[in-house]
């Protein structure tokens, strides 16, 4: 973790680059391009938001960026490597080490302690078992929940649950943190705290992609990518 953080230098190669991505959905006889030749790039250490009205292709773009879905055509380059044709298993492994997800619904495992929730991604990684708990505790301390290690989601407030989710996203020291409407289920005070946590992580040199329909929230980022009708309408890199 410290290795990538210490390299605050922004290398020439973007951490993630999408080239002319098309994603087509077919329903009966009609085809629909959710993404219609989208090209964007995300540089290392950037805090970028992706925004657009509902139905704009924002979610589809997030899925492609999150390596949850393969594009119909186009290239996805992760640190210069084309990964648009990886199989499901390779994609899962890449997600595990490259991406940290933060969801609107938190998606924590019920009746499961904060440390176990946070260490969940390590179950699918090469981190030795003995390091799981210390790493989970470290991450929970980082998000200010050092005193809630054994609390289950039901024993935590919404804001605290989202912090647990962020700690989980951080545990594998991902190249990119992808947050999908992370404040959507929170009151405004908790929402602000979460955003300031993102700022803090960004200041530490992390790359953050924030997906939101809320323009005010999107403006918190360094750079905004606006998508409309499956096309990116502003500056792409």
């Amino acid at each position: 973790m410290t290795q990538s953080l210490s390299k605050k230098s922004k290398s020439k190669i973007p951490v993630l680059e999408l080239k002319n991505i098309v994603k087509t959905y077919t329903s009966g006889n009609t085809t629909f391009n959710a993404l219609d030749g989208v090209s964007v790039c995300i540089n290392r250490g950037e805090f970028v938001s992706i925004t657009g009205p509902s139905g704009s292709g924002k979610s589809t773009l997030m899925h492609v960026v999150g390596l949850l879905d393969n594009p119909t055509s186009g290239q996805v380059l992760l640190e210069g490597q084309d990964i648009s044709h990886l199989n499901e298993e390779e994609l899962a492994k890449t997600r595990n080490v490259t991406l940290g997800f933060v969801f609107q619904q938190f998606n924590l495992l019920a009746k499961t302690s904060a440390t176990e929730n946070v260490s969940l991604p390590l179950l699918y990684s090469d981190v030795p078992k003995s390091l799981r708990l210390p790493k989970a505790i470290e991450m929970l301390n980082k998000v200010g929940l050092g005193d809630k290690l054994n609390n289950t989601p039901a024993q935590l407030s919404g804001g605290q649950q989202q912090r647990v989710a962020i700690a989980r996203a951080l545990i594998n020291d991902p190249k990119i943190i992808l947050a999908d409407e992370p404040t959507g289920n929170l009151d405004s005070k908790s929402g602000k705290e979460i955003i300031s946590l993102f700022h803090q992580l960004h200041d530490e040199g992390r790359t953050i992609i924030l997906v939101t329909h809320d323009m005010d929230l999107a403006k918190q980022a360094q750079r905004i990518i606006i998508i409309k009708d499956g096309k990116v309408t502003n500056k792409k890199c």
Partner: protein
Amino acid sequence: MLKPSIDDLIRSSIRSVLKNKSRTLLTSLGIIIGVTSVILLTSIGNGLTIYINQQFESLGSNSIFISPGKIFNDNGGFNNNESARFVTTSFTESDVNLIKRNLRGNLVIPMAMSSVEIKSNKITKTNITLAGSTYQLGETLDRLPSPGNGRWFTQEEENKNSPVLVLGYTIARDLFPTGNPLNRKVIIGGKNYKIIGVIDKKGSSFGGPDQDSQVYTPLGVVFNINGNENLAEILVKTPNKSQVDSIKEELNKLFLEKYDKDAFTVFDSSQLLDSINSIIGTLTIALTGIAAISLVVGGIGIMNIMLVTVSERTREIGLRKAIGAYPRAILLQFLFEAIILSGIGGIIGIILGSLGTAAINNFFPAKVTFSSVSIAFGVSFMVGIIFGVAPARKASKLSPIEALRYE
């Protein structure tokens, strides 16, 4: 290397299964019932076999019996052929002498049977088997009354056709519910008989006559009651067990010269035992098979609950996939949960089956076998795999996007 590791999978599956204890218990109920009944039935079959083996050992392992009719079929089972079963051949004194002449050194004991009515003071019992034999029978078949319970009849009493009776344990109790039957009189066919001995409880042998209800008397007494000198059975006791087979062969040869091959049967207790054991074995397998149906039903219950679980936990599956679980990891996780569900059922079933067996053993022979426990556990394990695969595959094939969106 497999990620997560097997012990991680087992631990997380146990944890998920234990999160909903009452559901787990109810889901496992089918397996619990199935395994319990399989273990109970095999234990009863096994106990019965052991018990009967013990019973037959008391018949004497170096005793050979010659009976009229064809008792066994060619496969070693009991004969079912009507015409052969009702052969009315009777042996006589000449057959006994034939054996005695040709097979010296062996003890030959003739037996005659009669079904009689016995009256004590107040009680009348009908259809009692009165076995007439020699003074040697008591010792040969381990029927000697124990000290204090009288004696077997003597050679002298046998020669004189003395009206003396040795009673089985049950018939003695039936005729004289209170008081000691020794030296009391009973009436058979209008004549008085004196009770000189009561045999200890032997238990009934399955498939054979109830030994405890038999009454023994000198051979000539039965001849007089029957009005003929027909013998129901001839017992040949060899000096040692190793000679049983060769003597059986010689007896067969001897009797074939005189009788048709279906008119008599030469057998020893092991042969009878083999037949009975094969019947019990078949019966146990059949009943266990029926009980095993409930294992299938239990498996369907597990599959049902696992499908519900997969639906309920769609978002969790989506999350796990998003953070790096590949399809096989999800498949194994849910498969392990199904196996653990049925495994829990198997373990509880084994415990209940063993306890039940111990309880049954108080009034009926039953004994848990290691093989029945391991088979029951193995089967419940297999049920978990077989019925867990479909839900686990469903879970592993969920698209992470769809799963994360699932409400």
